[in-house]
């Protein structure tokens, strides 16, 4: 589904990603871990099409298409979804309006009929149950005044409504209390099928108890320096990143 080859990217003239290789197949869940500032959000942003990141080398194939050539909106319509580490607040735009505009944009892209308000509301209320969100959040401006945890739930609600093929969850677990973590993880698991895939960025093994990854990658200084199965995350939890930092000059293992 996703194939990243030797991806290099920079921001403000600073090289951040320095040769990422990663392959994600349908049905898989990948976890990406790594120290602060190692480039995890940058990778997520490059995949979603954030303009401020400049790709200097490498390529990204997504379902046979050159992903880097697509506008951000087209990527979303093609099924790429990014749950933001820091979701932005949009005063003056209600959550319902936003969700409906997004869903209808995706449907229009695929030549499908747009939802009217009535059908849309039924759908979104159904999806809200998945993340145990109160319907009152629908009338509030997007993320405005939401608590940290509420913002993260709202991201998963959007994911549920848009039903993407490839979800990239950037620290969706940070800021969640224990109950919320379970609810959000549950939501992600319910949305997971053998046809779609997820890349989960996290600092904590805790999340991976709920969302069990097929692969765990360690990103250090813009490169994947170690890949393994879910046990790698347990090992990192106990030993930190220092031991992997030492091997960062070695050739990264291919998955």
């Amino acid at each position, binding site marked *: 589904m996703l194939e990243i080859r030797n991806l290099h990217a920079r921001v403000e003239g600073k090289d951040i990603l320095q040769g990422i290789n990663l392959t994600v197949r349908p049905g898989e869940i990948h976890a990406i871990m790594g120290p602060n500032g190692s480039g995890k959000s940058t990778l997520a942003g490059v995949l979603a099409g954030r303009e401020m990141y400049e790709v200097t080398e490498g390529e990204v194939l997504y379902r046979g298409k050159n992903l880097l050539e697509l506008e*951000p*909106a087209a990527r979303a319509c093609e099924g790429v979804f990014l749950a933001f580490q820091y979701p932005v607040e*949009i005063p*003056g735009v209600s959550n319902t309006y936003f969700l409906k505009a997004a869903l209808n944009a995706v449907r229009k892209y695929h030549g499908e009929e747009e939802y009217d308000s009535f059908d849309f509301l039924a759908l979104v209320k159904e999806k809200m149950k998945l993340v145990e969100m109160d319907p009152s959040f629908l009338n509030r401006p997007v993320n405005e005044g939401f608590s940290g945890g509420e913002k993260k739930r709202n991201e998963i609600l*959007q994911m549920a409504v848009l039903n993407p093929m490839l979800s990239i969850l950037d620290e969706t677990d940070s800021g969640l209390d224990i109950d919320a973590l379970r609810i959000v993880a549950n939501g992600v698991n319910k949305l997971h099928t053998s046809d779609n895939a997820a890349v989960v960025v996290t600092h904590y093994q805790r999340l991976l108890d709920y969302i069990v990854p097929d692969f765990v990658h360690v990103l250090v200084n813009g490169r994947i320096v170690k890949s393994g199965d879910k046990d790698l995350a347990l090992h990192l939890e106990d030993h930190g990143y220092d031991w992997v930092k030492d091997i960062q000059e070695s050739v990264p293992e291919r998955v």
Partner: protein
Amino acid sequence: MTKEQSIHSYQEQFAAFEKTLNGESGSSFHALRREALLQFAETGFPTLRNEDWRYTNLNPLTGTAFAMAIQPAESAMLRSQAKAHALRIPDALTLLFVDGHFLPRLSDLGSLPEGLEVRDLPAVLREDALPVGSAATDATVMRNNPFTALNTAFTRQGVTLSVRRNALIEQPLHLLFFSTPAATPFVAHPRVVIDVEANAQCSFVEQYVGDPGAVYFNNVVTDVHVGENAVVQHIKIQDESTAAFHVAANYATVARSGHYANHYIGLGGALLRNAIHAVLAGEGAHCTMNGVYIPGGVQHMDHFTVTDHAVPNCTSHELYKGILTDETRGVFTGKIIVRQDAQKTDARQANNNLLLSENAQIDTRPQLEIYADDVKCTHGATVGRINDDQLFYLESRGIDRAQAGNILSYAFASDIVTRIPLASLREAIDDRLYRRLEESWKK
């Protein structure tokens, strides 16, 4: 045409206009017209050296020759033509004006609610019954506002609206000003006089529309008196042809504990000047001024507002927002005067602008003249651009850049609409605003 030639042509027009007045030319109102014309000729058109007009070059207006608007033939077709441009406000009563002339037979006069009186201005003037001494006909006002003097010199067309004591008028009154496409540019000087007596409540929607591309000049004066404890919602939707000239002066006087709210939506006109002069004349009076302007192409929009706190314990709130695209130019001046007596004044003002293009320009200036010492006055102006993080957030959900930009600019403007306390009108305006913004993001 130079400014002098332009003034001269209005003088000639006045001579011709006088001849059509017959017996009326002996009336006291006509004496006022003559004074107004003299005053206009003496002051002349404002230049950039005039502080109040510093950012608005009137050459395109003074350089155009305008014939006097003529009385249109009333027909059902004319009404539907005008209605085609109008906002649909389901519960409103419509008063139709075409080329500045009030057309009673094409207006909903049959079903006026009790307590509301509408009179055709020519009839009022024939009786010489227009209350002289209102703000707009004050000698000082005319000296300082040459366009008001010019309007007074030619005042004949328009209406007077009176709302009786204690009357609660629920249906909004929709004053629809339609300008017809004409072979030669024409000028109209409509005058609307609104007198709302004590304890009454009412809403007026003043809307200006014209065929796209039509060149004309609307020189409008409205004169509003808000009685004691009365509440007036005055909504203006300026949606003129983008080739038209629109210069308006709106004078409001608010008596004790009265509330005057002016909501302005500005979309049309090649050259627009919208002035509001509100005087809080009785203790406890309140004035709200909210506005949004969205010029496109090369439109020039100048908003000039004056809030005059003449007595103690009055409040005023003003919020103007602008979205500027293409090569447009916007001007906002917010003058707050607090007279020496006006202790405990509470005045707030803000002007926020969104620049969507490198070539758009906004000049914004608060002007505070405070002569009392125990007052609260706040003001602030901002000029910003679309927030990239918000734009990307929307795009990352499948909404293309044009629509995302449209959603964000609409969100910026929409809180002006949400402050209009008439649901039916809000919907109609929402619709119109959204379409207008869509045009600017499609490019």
